[in-house]
């Protein structure tokens, strides 16, 4: 085994790091946390203009797929707003993989400019993990489809130009055989976006579709073939495009805070033996998370679809992140409860922020329970129980 990156990948990483150093200003970070929208169009556009988005679409082009991992891993480690970008590039990958020339010419090129966003319309109020049971209807009317229903957790819908929308086109067949995916322009009449605030300040949305009419050319994949499109999207989503190293900035923030924070036992918190042990354990978990993610990227780079390996990486990384946040918030005591704007907040409020954010990481993008089911059934070969 060789864990060194290729010269090209090393160069790419250096470019990304230099870009982050130049463009990830305090204002950008403050803005993302003030608005709860982890997407910055100017930042994304600058990334594209610097030529750094070409490798960011899973399965697209001739760039080393390791670059995809590097880009999102560097953005995540730096604490940059990348959530909107990751979803957008994921949709770009799906469009490239299953879309038509119409989709590619109308959408893909725009997405690569960094100036447009997409969001995911899968979940509904009553259908989350059991996504094959969704009820948002698409009914054919000549060359058009008429879509009616409601989606939930449509994060970035309020800044998006398109939504990929999972709909039911046939209620009379087994549930996953009657689904069809559409790429719907968000300015189509009949779409309404309502904000859903969360305890971590991150904004998500509920979206409503009332007789929304789209031409058949916006259909993505076959009629009643939506489940296959979902499969492509999920394989791209899990593991590689960020989300597996959230404890790297956490560890950095806590380490930097601990060096200057007085311990009630005397000395600094950085001299506290239990905190040192936990910082070390978090550093180990960060390495393991990185390696599991790198493996998923490596599988993609050698022609595979790393869905299962991505599940393993997400399962491990998000569990360890939550454990670490819990440790550090306890050890910071009352100061660990204080937010960004409070005087004396431990780690300038990052501990409070991460403790608020961490719970969602084992929920969104495939819950820990669903990932465990995947590993149990598809990796360990245990009998399906649903």
């Amino acid at each position: 085994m060789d864990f060194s990156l290729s010269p090209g990948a090393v160069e790419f990483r250096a470019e990304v790091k230099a870009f982050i150093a130049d463009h990830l200003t305090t204002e950008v970070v403050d803005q993302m946390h003030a608005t709860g929208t982890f997407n910055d169009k100017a930042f994304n556009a600058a990334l594209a203009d610097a030529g750094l988005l070409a490798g960011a679409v899973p399965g697209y082009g001739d760039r080393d797929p390791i670059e995809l991992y590097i880009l999102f891993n560097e953005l995540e480690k730096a604490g940059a707003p990348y959530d909107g970008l990751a979803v957008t590039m994921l949709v770009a990958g799906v469009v490239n993989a299953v879309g038509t020339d119409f989709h590619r010419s109308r959408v893909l090129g725009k997405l690569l400019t960094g100036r447009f966003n997409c969001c995911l319309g899968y979940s509904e109020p009553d259908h989350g993990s059991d996504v094959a049971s969704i009820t948002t209807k698409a009914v054919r009317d000549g060359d058009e489809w008429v879509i009616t229903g409601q989606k939930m957790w449509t994060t970035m819908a309020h800044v998006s130009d398109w939504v990929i929308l999972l709909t039911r086109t046939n209620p009379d067949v087994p549930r996953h055989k009657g689904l069809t995916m559409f790429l719907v322009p968000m300015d189509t009449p009949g779409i309404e976006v309502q904000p859903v605030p969360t305890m971590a300040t991150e904004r998500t949305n509920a979206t409503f579709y009332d007789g929304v009419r789209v031409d058949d050319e916006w259909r993505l994949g076959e009629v009643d073939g939506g489940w296959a499109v979902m499969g492509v999207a999920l394989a791209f989503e899990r593991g590689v495009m960020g989300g597996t190293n959230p404890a790297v900035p956490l560890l950095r923030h806590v380490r930097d805070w601990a060096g200057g924070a007085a311990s009630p036992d005397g000395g600094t918190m950085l001299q506290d033996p239990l905190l040192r042990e936990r910082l070390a354990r978090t550093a180990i978990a960060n390495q393991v998370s990185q390696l599991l993610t790198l493996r998923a990227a490596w599988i993609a780079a050698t022609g595979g679809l790393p869905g299962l390996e991505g599940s393993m990486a997400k399962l491990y990384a998000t569990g360890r992140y939550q454990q670490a946040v819990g440790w550090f918030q306890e050890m910071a005591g009352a100061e660990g409860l204080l937010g960004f704007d409070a005087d004396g907040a431990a780690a300038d409020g990052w501990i409070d922020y991460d403790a608020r954010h961490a719970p969602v990481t084992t929920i969104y993008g495939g819950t820990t329970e669903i990932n465990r089911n995947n590993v149990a059934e598809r990796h360990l070969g245990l009998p399906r129980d649903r």
Partner: protein
Amino acid sequence: MPVGSVSPMDLDLTEDQEAIRDVFADFFSSETGPERARDAEPLGFDSRAWDRLMETGAPGMGVGGSRGGGATLADLTVVVEEAGAHIAALPLVDHMVATRLLATVGVCDDDVLAGTTIVGLAIRPAQDGTARTVPTGAVARRVVALDGDTLVLVEGDPGAHLENHGCLPLADRPLAGATVLAEGPDAVAAYRRTLDEWRTLTASTLVGITRTALDLGVGYVKERRQFGRPIGSFQAIQHLLADLPGLLDGARLLTAKAAWAGDRAVAGQAGVADIGDNEITDFAALACMALVSAGEAATTATDRSLHVHGGYGFSEEYDIQLYFRRARALSVVLDDPARECRRLADLLLAGPSTSSPSGAGSDRNSVPHGGPEPGGDADHLATGATR
């Protein structure tokens, strides 16, 4: 999927390593295994398997040059993962790393290379002239130890076996009359490197144990029926086991990275340890991380696998208890994993802990304090000296 630039990154074994894996998977499968491990208890030494292993050249394969096998540390991890997976009761890891150390100081004779004379490693610094709980002290005629800043070799009959949890051939070894191999900072550095090799190969052994523990658990829950169904169809059982592949693969990748860093260090390539950027290529840090990670994987996997066996897992008749006890023994025989983590923190973070007993100049292992620099390891020695 088109691939542009060709990456040197390669997360597969080399062709040679695949061949090594296949040869030793066959060997340990036929010459060792749970029945043989049972027969070897309580001492924990399968002398017949050791005799056969000598025919393969494995005991000396880690020594370079014309005399040994020239295997890299990465190659050795492949061998010992198979030994762990087949619960081999053999002093292989300790012999391999001690032999490599002896070769660097020029006292590695043919009997040692062949394995006719078994060499052990005192993994804890000597205290009051005795190396305590040497992992293979009850079967090794020779033992390498660090006494203060002096590297010594003791030779004589193996020590009296200390009956123990994992049926390891543990014994105390008095160092009276030992030969001095080297002294001073170079001696300490050589010993530390050897200990990091021990950590890496022990981690790989634990990865092998984890792998088989998972296989045993999965195999059992597919067969065992309750309430009219295989118990492996219940999510309560599935989810206990579903966390384990990530732990297993993560520990294996981290161990492989540690071995890679160890081989690079030999080639003169220094590593870094930057936790702020999650960039760790330093051998000492990765060896410690690998041992903690693999120890956790193995203790978790054996614990969960034993649990899903129900009462049978607790009985001597079933194999999982062998793996359970061995996993715990190899995870703690060097030190409490929490103390290993604090030692790791000394490598990764600025400044020593308030609890560190390394009062400046107060301990006899007075080696230059490494502080935050990668490879600095003085606190570990000091910590060990107070035990």
